[in-house]
């Protein structure tokens, strides 16, 4: 499911979608027919090379180094809501219930968070637009500052109906919609599921969402079971996402420098 989402993301993010299949065959030939190639070809091949490199290793960006289970525990990520607020679909993610308080299974959280951070890093590596969404008034400023620091986008205000589904009319023709939406809290102020989850699913936009024990994780592509009410937990998530995005972007710049230095040597041979 994750691999399928990744390839879907790949196809969605590449501009020259129709030509990718054709180019992989032409790419093998360019080493022999050096004189007939156009000046754009080396650039395209370099981009392809950079993108393929990132898919070689499972944890290319080493996101598992960013956090440990102990960090999650200290940030009180395992604390869920009371038993009465529990959502039926969150039961697989819960470790147990103590004195009516739900405890989220941090082993599962670690796996899910690693998947989510890895996916975010790949999206940021490919220059995708990431939108941070949270409707918690407490953390609205924090989320917006995080997005600003990463160079990505945030929406922590009232969600107007047609923002994703009616994009060209709302923003203007030719707008580019977000390639990934990160929900730092999937509920809105009235404790109902945020409209953005359903809209993103309609528009085929992958989502990463921090789901608490009273949330519905079904439509979220990469759910991360965890606490979304404590300031410590929210600061941890913001810090983690900011680090992954920055690392991915730096890595991309590094790879481009590396390959643009080495690229002029290959065609001339």
């Amino acid at each position, binding site marked *: 499911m994750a691999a399928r989402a990744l390839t879907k993301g790949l196809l969605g993010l590449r501009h020259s979608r129709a030509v990718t299949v054709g180019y992989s065959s032409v790419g093998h030939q360019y080493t022999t027919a050096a004189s007939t190639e156009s000046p754009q070809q080396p650039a395209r091949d370099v981009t392809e090379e950079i993108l393929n490199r990132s898919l070689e290793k499972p944890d290319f960006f080493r996101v598992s180094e960013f956090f440990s289970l102990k960090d999650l525990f200290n940030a009180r990520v395992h604390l869920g809501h009371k038993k009465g607020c529990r959502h039926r679909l969150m039961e697989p993610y819960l470790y147990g219930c103590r004195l009516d308080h739900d405890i989220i299974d941090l082993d599962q959280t670690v796996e899910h968070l690693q998947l989510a951070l890895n996916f975010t890093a790949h999206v940021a590596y490919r220059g995708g637009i990431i939108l941070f969404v949270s409707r918690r008034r407490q953390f609205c*400023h924090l989320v917006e500052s995080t997005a600003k620091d990463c160079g990505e986008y945030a929406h922590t205000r009232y969600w*107007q109906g047609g923002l994703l589904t009616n994009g060209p009319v709302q*923003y203007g023709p030719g707008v*580019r919609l977000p390639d990934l939406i990160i929900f730092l809290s999937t509920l809105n102020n009235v404790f109902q599921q945020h409209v953005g989850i359903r809209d993103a699913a309609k528009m085929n936009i992958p989502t990463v969402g921090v789901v608490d024990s009273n949330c519905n994780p079904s439509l979220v592509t990469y759910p991360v079971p965890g606490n979304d009410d404590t300031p410590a937990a929210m600061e941890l998530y913001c810090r983690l996402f900011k680090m992954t995005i920055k690392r991915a972007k730096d890595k991309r710049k590094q790879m481009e420098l590396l390959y643009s230095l080495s690229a002029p040597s290959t065609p001339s041979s």
Partner: protein
Amino acid sequence: MAASCARTVGLFFGKCGNCSWNFNIVTSQLSRQVQRRQICVSSALHRKNLAAAGPEKFTMEFIEKQIEEFNIGKRHLANMMGEDPENFTQEDIDRSIAYLFPSGLFEKKAQPLMKHPEEIFPKQRAVQWGEDRRPFHFLFYTGKQSYYSLMHETYSTILKVEKHQDRLRAKGLLNQDVKQISLSTSRWLTKEELEALLVETISTHDYDRFLQLMGRLLAMPHCATEEEFVLRYRQQLEGQSPKQMMPALERDDGGVAFSTAEGRRKTSTCSVVLRDCGSGRVTINGQDYLHYFPVLQDRAQLMFPLQFNGVLGRFDLECQVSGGGRSSQAGALRLAISRALLSFLSEGEMENMRQAGLLTSDPRVTERKKPGQEGARKKFTWKKR
């Protein structure tokens, strides 16, 4: 007769406008919506829904072309007027246009004008994203990026002030008297002014929220550190001083103290010279006041300010009055006399005059006649059926 013919023809056309046949309409002032077209072409195909399009959008190239044309036209105009094309200012342009195209119209907006395209075409948002189609602003996807970034900035300043206060509290210096921002000389920007500042439409709800947040910032004791940020969103008021404007006390050759004042009421204007002679003579337009105002009521109006202050026989009045009727001239003179008297009186007496209403100019003017009525208030005869 011709007008009634035109009206009936218009009604006839109005009824036929719904059908799909057209006339080459000569009397176009009857219905502007139907366009001139050849006979036997259906108008339903060509009719544009003018309301649904919204305000007209101009591209950047169009605006740039307009600016170029304006600059070239400015140089041509300078050459025509025989002036230096390099130093041709906007005032010179206005003067030249008024000279070359004299207009007898009263409505300023209908007169010919030549201004820089920036002032004519409404300000619009440029395209919000770059070559890679990534938007420039981090709050682009909210829809109201300028407004929300303003709220974000305001909240950041609140947090900054709170941090500053926490640091002072840690040192124990919190309860010192701090300079407060003076808010009496300014007011908040109105919704329209804020919209113009942000180049974005705001709802009243959003505007109220913004004011609430600013109020929260100002409620903190140490908000003076962010005074510059607050004053950016406040409009300075014109100096409203409680002091009365009084005319200067002059002395003519001969050592007699006098003061001049003007007054207006309805359409009359007058000017009065009050001399501290000792006689009680009153001259209006060269005539004695008994001749000019035969009616006692008008003369009483003139004398009231002097009688109120108990200086009836002391001053000499020399008045010039024009316009209006008998009563309005008397009222204008009364106001002018009260104003001229201010320079001879003490503060307490001035306050008494103000309380008596002698220094307030009467704002009542003739109310306009409304259509569908006989006059300003009088209606046509009401018929039950």
